[in-house]
């Protein structure tokens, strides 16, 4: 890779050595890229305050040679997301999104997919910036993040026999296979979550509606609890661990009077997942 000029979103920024900074960037053409910004902490002139978390930049990167990291040569701010700096809740949700992207975004990938991921990231930050977060929004945003990362779950048809799952009562959802199971296919399997068809429909709407009108989607407390549990399980399954920023986000939700995981108070697990 020679010189690269691109837009970029800062996913993560880590101080390195005495005066440098290592940045995880998301690029529209190639997914995640780690670069080193030499002298970024000492020289205020060189990058003049552009290397902040959430910043959407126009960058010039010098490609990696042998064992060295790609080097950030220039950065110009296209857009910051100011409300994420001044509202701790929005900051927390924004960090959570960035960590999810940082963990799951591939380094390189099909170009169209990467562009879609990049525009999802910007839209999502804009969305978080525009309104105080609540639990429904957080849930839908997480689901859409998984979708943008190519990990969209099936929400309508049985993942085994492909027949539409219908019915009034509780159905089951197979986390590892990423979708619901019909009554015939659901016999004696472990790792299943209970979920109502109505909850799956609401989540499906959350995926298909325009981001701008997601606010209109409302879920009752029990549907929301089911949805949270399902999305959280899916997310943990794909990330393979609990995101660090989840604890912080949960705490801020709790301090502002929003219970972070109403699912914990309901026992909707039919078979506990190991």
């Amino acid at each position: 890779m020679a010189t690269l000029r691109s837009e970029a979103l800062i996913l993560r920024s880590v101080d390195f050595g005495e005066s440098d900074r290592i940045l995880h960037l998301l690029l529209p053409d190639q997914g995640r890229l780690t670069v080193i910004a030499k002298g970024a902490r000492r020289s205020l002139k060189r990058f003049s305050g552009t290397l902040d978390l959430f910043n959407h930049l126009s960058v010039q990167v010098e490609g990696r040679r042998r064992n060295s990291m790609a080097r950030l040569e220039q950065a110009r701010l296209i857009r910051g997301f100011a409300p994420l700096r001044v509202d701790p809740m929005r900051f927390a949700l924004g960090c959570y999104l960035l960590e999810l992207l940082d963990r799951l975004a591939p380094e390189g990938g099909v170009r169209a997919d990467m562009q879609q991921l990049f525009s999802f990231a910007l839209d999502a930050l804009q969305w978080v910036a525009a309104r105080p977060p609540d639990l429904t929004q957080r849930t839908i945003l997480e689901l859409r993040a998984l979708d943008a990362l190519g990990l969209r779950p099936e929400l309508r048809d049985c993942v085994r026999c492909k027949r539409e799952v219908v019915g009034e009562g509780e159905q089951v959802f197979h986390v590892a296979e990423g979708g619901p199971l019909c009554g015939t296919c659901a016999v004696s399997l472990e790792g299943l979550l209970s979920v109502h068809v109505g909850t799956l429909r609401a989540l499906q709407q959350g995926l298909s509606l325009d981001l701008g009108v997601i606010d209109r989607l409302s879920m009752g407390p029990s549907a929301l609890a089911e949805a949270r549990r399902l999305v959280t399980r899916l997310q943990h399954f794909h990330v393979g661990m609990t995101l660090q920023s989840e604890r912080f986000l949960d705490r801020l939700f709790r301090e502002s009077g929003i219970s972070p995981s109403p699912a914990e108070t309901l026992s909707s697990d039919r078979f506990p997942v190991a």
Partner: protein
Amino acid sequence: MRSSPPIDRLVESLKRLPGIGEKTATRLAFYLVGAADNQVQALANAIGRLKQEIVLCERCFDLTDHSPCQICLDPKREPGLLCVVEEPADLAAIEKSASFRGHYHVLGGAFAPIDGVGPDELRVRELLERVRGGEIQEVVLATNPNTEGDATAHYLADQLRESGVKLSRIAYGMPLGGDLEYADHVTVGLCIENRRGL
């Protein structure tokens, strides 16, 4: 160059210091081999005593050799004015600007959710207790003017608001995304002078 295990050991240790590479470390090591015994002993002592004698001030959490520290005990400082900073180096930067005559509170960092740093990992509880003590009238939030520092300042402001103290944030006299530790003292002085309410 051929060398011996004692020299290699020293070079390895020196290389871990900021701004020192293999070449400088080697030069320093060979300099010390040739230096007077008492000079080398004095250096070794100073380094050895550093970690034993430096403690955290029980009030402001700055690094000090006596707790409470000199700043906390200084009767000429305004008792009602408290400046909240991320790190001891930030406190030192503000002191160097000679623009602030109140007291300090060192948080120990700023929020870094992705590294698991939230309110419990910083000295937030200690700050709230200090302010509830009643003597403080104004809190200047001087966390770094980057995303994490801003978010931390606003969180603290939300927590402190009910105590009724005056709240202010350092002015953006320096570029966003910067680091107080590396700013020149004129800029740091301006940041203190131009603080504003929240």
